[in-house]
């Protein structure tokens, strides 16, 4: 199907609108949709998982240091290929193994990859040294600094200010 607007490119976006109780459907190519501001209207892309999974196939789309689609997570053996098929990750370690890909995906899905909610606080005795495991003041400072760096990178200045204040208290 060709784009309703330019009539040249293949339509990729099918926009159904309800205006005054009348339903209209428009078929647009990506360029025309972008020009009409359709794609950005919702803030969060509607089917980001599909977009993301498709983008995995394109060369050069992932960060340079990232493993390719056939590289396996050392902890569980899952590959990006597996994730593409099931939509599920194999284990917690996958988030580190495929960190670049996932950061990208999480930003598309949620509009951010920086968790700001409740933090896991295990009782000192029970936590293992696994990812996100036990803390200590020195480790906490290191983590906060890392978060601060990321917050500044992401231009999330509100969070950065909060992190800076927390760092001041700890130091």
């Amino acid at each position, binding site marked *: 199907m060709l784009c309703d607007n330019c009539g040249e490119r293949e339509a990729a976006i099918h926009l159904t609108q*309800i205006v005054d*109780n009348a339903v209209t459907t428009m078929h647009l190519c990506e360029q025309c949709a972008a020009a009409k501001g359709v794609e950005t*209207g*919702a*803030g*969060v892309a*509607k089917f980001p*998982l599909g977009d993301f999974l498709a983008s995995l196939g394109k060369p050069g789309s992932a960060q340079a240091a990232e493993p390719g689609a056939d590289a396996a997570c050392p*902890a*569980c*053996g*899952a590959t990006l290929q597996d994730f593409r098929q*099931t*939509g*599920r*990750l*194999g*284990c*917690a370690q996958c*988030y*580190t193994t495929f960190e670049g890909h*996932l*950061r990208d*995906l*999480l930003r598309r*899905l*949620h*509009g*951010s*990859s*920086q*968790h*700001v*909610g*409740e*933090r*896991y*606080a*295990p*009782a000192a005795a*029970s*936590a*293992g040294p*696994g*990812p*996100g*495991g036990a803390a200590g003041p020195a480790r906490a400072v290191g*983590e906060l600094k*890392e*978060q601060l760096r*990321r917050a500044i990178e992401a231009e999330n200045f509100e969070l950065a200010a909060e992190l800076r204040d927390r760092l001041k208290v700890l130091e």
Partner: protein
Amino acid sequence: MIDLKLIPDGGLGWLDASGPMSNIVLSTRVRLARNLAGMPFNGRSSEPERRRVLDEVDRVWQRSPLARGGVRFLVDELEPGDRVLLHERHLISKELAAAAVERNGDSHGAVYLAGSLGLMVNEEDHLRLQVFHSGFALSQAYADLERLDRDLGSALPVAFHQEFGYLTACPTNAGTGLRASVLIHLPGLVLTKEIAKVLQGLTQVGLTFRGLYGEGSEVVGNFFQLSNQTTLGKTEDELLDHLGKIVRQVVTYEEQARQVLLRDAPTIIEDKVWRAYALLRYARSLSFEETMNLLSGVRLGVGLKLIPKLSVYTLNKLLIYTQPAHLAALDVRAPQDSELRAARASYVRTILEEEAARAA
């Protein structure tokens, strides 16, 4: 057959319609997704690993003061009908029920229930903590759930990432792992044909809607589940506040739509709700879908005070007990579809007759 009397409140405390706005908002549910660190997610777990997850959770649950008076069901050991029954009560997910079959009885799936709290083990994520409240009660519900989360988290190694937060099998749940949803009845907006606008607006503000049974389910009887779409980049309170604000707005729209209906088409509305009542009271065969739609009409009538002396509790109860596995549980012969419809009509009749007799 499991003894449902063992479940505190039958797991249906929220049916009592005691919560705020319970005439329009039936229930509030909040869930948190958690995984144990150092263990593969359930899509890639082995049988011994799933057993270990269950053993570890069991140990911690037994010690939690929140578990007092609670029960545990091992999904693998339940009869198929009982799994459906728990699903119809929204106490276990379809996935957890299905896992027992798919894994040939070694899913080690379980559900723990205590008061309004529930904990599913070995679902898509190792842990799914959930809480149900009557009416519109997001912050109360979350407060209860947070206590359980803290209890479990203080004794279990949980998969957590400094940047991404709580790690989940599906990235759509990562971060807070929090999904809050309210089950809301919107016949006014459907009848005034405003609903499409409202639903479209929801998706634009980062919320999503589903049918009665959550993900992938159809909308029946004008019941919608509204919930947050994103789980990362906002605090739990921000996610709940946002959903709460929008729900309040939707409730206001619904109330306005009902007033418009009463003002512009009073006879039509009155006729509609009484016809719905009459069919439920006297019909001899009812499909599930028809029952849901008629209950929706009657519920609207009760909300508009057109039908007096019928409690929201009774309507809530009918919503749960007219589902197939619940009817089958009343009647031990596994009924055919036609018998099921007859059994449903008979059950609805009895309940409504009892209520009418009480009111007289």
